[in-house]
């Protein structure tokens, strides 16, 4: 039982990170049907921005009373900065190709991914870099098992962000404009929606969520490296496809499910670790073959 709970909490916690990245893929795809392969590296950069801010303000030594507002501020500032980065990437690399054949922005996205990874390598080097965990450590005993406090806080933060995103998309004017743009870009433009602004906002939100995922990854694993985003990005992309790319709830669900699949297939079998990847990407292929719209499907009409 203890083993089961350990595996469950590991799966949900890493699933939370995958879900936060997957949201960025799914939001961007929903609006402009671009698979933003640079998103995994945007996630890594978010983790590094968070690390730099923590070091800059010496947050490891802050008292617990100060730490709670400090952490909220840390997340807010990191997410804002990373959001701006996402907007800049869209402006520089994708907007000029908006009306080009679909393959062109896709290749630009792959190129942007290599570019970002290369810059991270040059700036931070190839080594593993230690990350402090500012979330409460220790664990809650359930009698038959125990759950890490860090895991609980991570899940809580993730759920808050997801609910916030959902409310934003469903309740606000900008959210409505995003949905309208996703449904029919031309009609939305005719209705007076500034398409460029909406797309930029979408990149901002996606990159901001990835930054939250990056900090959470750092807190949980206490170690990051420049090439972190490559595999995490691909897995999160699988999660987005699994949940139904373009579907926000689907991406969240997909992230958690993929996280659990990886944790259980790793812990409960004697297979080597790379079998987890085989399973994950087999799921990607099976979903694409048998249910291209994913678990929940995309809630936009045929074009």
């Amino acid at each position: 039982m203890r083993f089961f709970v350990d595996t469950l909490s590991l799966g949900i916690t890493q699933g939370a990170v995958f879900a936060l990245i997957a949201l960025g893929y799914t939001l961007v795809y929903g609006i402009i049907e671009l698979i933003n392969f640079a998103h995994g590296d945007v996630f890594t950069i978010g983790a590094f921005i968070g690390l730099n801010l923590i070091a800059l303000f010496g947050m490891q030594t802050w008292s617990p009373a100060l730490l709670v507002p400090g952490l909220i501020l840390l997340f807010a500032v990191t997410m804002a900065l990373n959001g701006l980065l996402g907007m800049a990437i869209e402006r520089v690399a994708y907007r000029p190709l908006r009306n080009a054949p679909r393959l062109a922005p896709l290749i630009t996205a792959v190129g942007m991914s290599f570019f970002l990874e290369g810059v991270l390598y040059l700036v931070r080097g190839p080594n593993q870099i230690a990350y402090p965990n500012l979330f409460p450590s220790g664990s809650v005993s359930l009698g038959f098992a125990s759950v890490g406090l860090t895991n609980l806080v991570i899940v809580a933060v993730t759920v808050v962000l997801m609910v916030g995103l959902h409310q934003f998309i469903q309740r606000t004017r900008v959210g409505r404009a995003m949905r309208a743009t996703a449904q029919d870009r031309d009609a939305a433009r005719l209705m007076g929606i500034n398409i460029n602004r909406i797309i930029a906002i979408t990149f901002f939100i996606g990159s901001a969520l990835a930054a939250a995922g990056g900090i959470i990854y750092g807190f949980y694993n206490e170690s990051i490296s420049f090439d972190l985003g490559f595999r995490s990005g691909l897995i999160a992309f699988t999660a987005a496809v699994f949940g139904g790319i373009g579907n926000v709830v689907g991406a969240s669900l997909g992230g958690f499910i993929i996280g659990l699949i990886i944790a259980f297939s790793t812990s409960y079998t004697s297979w080597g670790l790379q079998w987890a990847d085989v399973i994950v990407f087999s799921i990607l292929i099976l979903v694409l073959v048998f249910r291209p719209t994913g678990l929940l499907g995309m809630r936009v009409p045929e074009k």
Partner: protein
Amino acid sequence: MERPKVLAAIGVAGMVLAACGGGPQGGSQTIKGTIKIGVDMPTSGSDASDGLPTSKGAQLAVTKAGKVCGASSHTDACFTLQAMPLDDAVNGVHDPAQGAKNVQQFVSDSTVLGMVGPFNSSVARAEMPIGNSANLAMISPANTNECLTQEPSDGHCAGQAAKLRPTGKNNYFRVCTTDLIQGPAAADFASKKLSKTKVYVMNDQQTYGLGIAQNFAKQFTSDGGTVLDSNLGGFDPGSATISDFKAKMNQAKSQGADVVFFGGTTATKGGLLRKAMQGILDVPYVAGDGISGDQFLKDAAPNAANSYFTVAGPYPQKLSTAATFLTDYKAKYGEDAGAYSAQAYDAGAIIIAAISRAIDDAGGNMPTRDQVTAEVAKTKNYKGVIGTTSFDSNGDTSLKIITVYKWNPDTSKSDFADQVTVS
């Protein structure tokens, strides 16, 4: 009978250089040209803390000698020695393809008559056929995978050693012993000295990592212990994350592991695995020489304590023959020698001694690579820093010593834990 003269020649050269600050040669010696010795190690990124001190050890042997003259019949024919150090790490991790390119670079430079390296067995596999085609003498200070040189009777090497030598002649030697000794030594240490009975093994599936894990598991079983995961926990070091390791450590804990063995290097995430054990599995961690560089401490912090590793060689600080070397190294580089610096120094010195004899073979002229390789193969009872080295017909050393170290995070150094000598 040639040996003392060679040493004397090198010693005299060293003294002359020391006295004149590298100035002109004395007596009737003439400098006839330059001979280069290639040094190939991973010297950047996560591998640098292993590879750089090793590369420096080899370079020290070259700069200390300064020049090489004929051993006995042509002591007046001398050549200036120069080290040519290259880095085989790409993105901070040793890369077989880069190693192959580096050896090609050595081969294409006709003044390179030998090389020290590589550090990693997987890199050696890529480099050996290239070096072999040019019959370039290669002496590795740190490759421990047995299949590079041998064909053990159980056939687990599947004829690799022969495939790595397309010309059929041997050009590859090593001054460290193999994982046939190192893996079992680590297993004996875990089961007898640490009194552990249930091991959970992880390996990076590379030439060295998988090989040492297999040799470890075999001996640990025959010592009466249990290997919990018969697949030896293979993973892809390029993509495995700390979360994946945590999942495997959860499994290890549920199966009651009381020690973890890692086959691999720091660059293939050995330190990260140690870190992943924090809060999950509080048991000793044992690995081979792949984690001997201090990057391991940084990657594993704050969970680096209680970690052991073996090194295929003696503990230099305990050897009287190594005292001068250790002082010289510290004086030149301002830091203590690494776990394989002394081996690299001896590897370089053995090549220089062989070149010296080859100059005689060439009648006082620039020797060919064939002559140098033939002389390296003849190395018998070479008294170096790490002890007395002779090469057998496979190119393996007669010096079969394993040292066990324990990482000490408080001093950021590794302490002596145990030593095993196999006769």
